[in-house]
């Protein structure tokens, strides 16, 4: 039993459970925001799991998700631009909350890891995660206004 495992389990159950509810119900704008925030919540959970199982090599999963998660959201933002233009999502509160949770998880992990290459890698992943999350949210709420069928 491990504090890290507990934190990861709570993050997964609460975060991805809410994302599941958001992606399956409601108007399109809620669904795309839920998809966006699901990757932003899964990445810190994977980093916490790597600390929980004491296997630093699992951090690569967090790196790939921090890089490709926002790309997935950009796919939806660009190819659903016409449908979203009529009813743009406005979920900055949720986005900033999730960004804050991600930052808290990364800081806690950096403290636990101690200075060195591993901490630098965690900080890079944290920066990619938070910037990707915010840019993807920006893209969903009107970033592709000038795209017509391209």
């Amino acid at each position, binding site marked *: 039993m491990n504090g890290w495992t507990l934190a990861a389990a709570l993050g*997964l159950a609460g975060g991805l459970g809410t*994302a599941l509810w958001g*992606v399956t119900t409601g108007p*399109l704008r809620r*669904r795309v925001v839920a998809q966006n925030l*699901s990757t932003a919540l899964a990445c810190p959970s994977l980093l916490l799991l790597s600390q929980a199982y004491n296997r630093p090599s699992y951090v690569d999963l967090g790196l790939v998700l921090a890089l490709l*998660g926002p790309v997935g959201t950009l796919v*939806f933002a660009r190819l659903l631009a016409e449908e979203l233009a009529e009813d743009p999502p406005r979920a900055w509160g949720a986005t900033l909350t999730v960004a804050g949770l991600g930052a808290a998880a990364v800081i806690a992990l950096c403290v636990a890891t101690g200075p060195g290459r591993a901490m630098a890698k965690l900080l890079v992943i944290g920066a990619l995660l938070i910037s990707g999350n915010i840019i993807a949210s920006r893209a969903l709420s009107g970033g592709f206004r000038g795209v017509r069928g391209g």
Partner: protein
Amino acid sequence: MADAVIVVALLLVAGCATAAVATRDPMRQALVLSLLGVVLAVLFTVLQAPDAGLSQLAVGSALTPLLLMLTVRKVKRRAQGKERER
């Protein structure tokens, strides 16, 4: 405690997969499938299979949604083209 994470991941996969089957519109289904991909990758990680989890993340986060949405766009464009001809 480690078992609790596995149970959470399994329940999430079950819920997501059922939701993916229950969503009929391809556009919305693509969104649910993207979430299913992430949840599957988490399941593989908690079952100590990080290589499989990394494969799932690489393929399911951006590649599969892109292929699905491009196909939906092409089909919709064709339908619109036929509408305009009529």
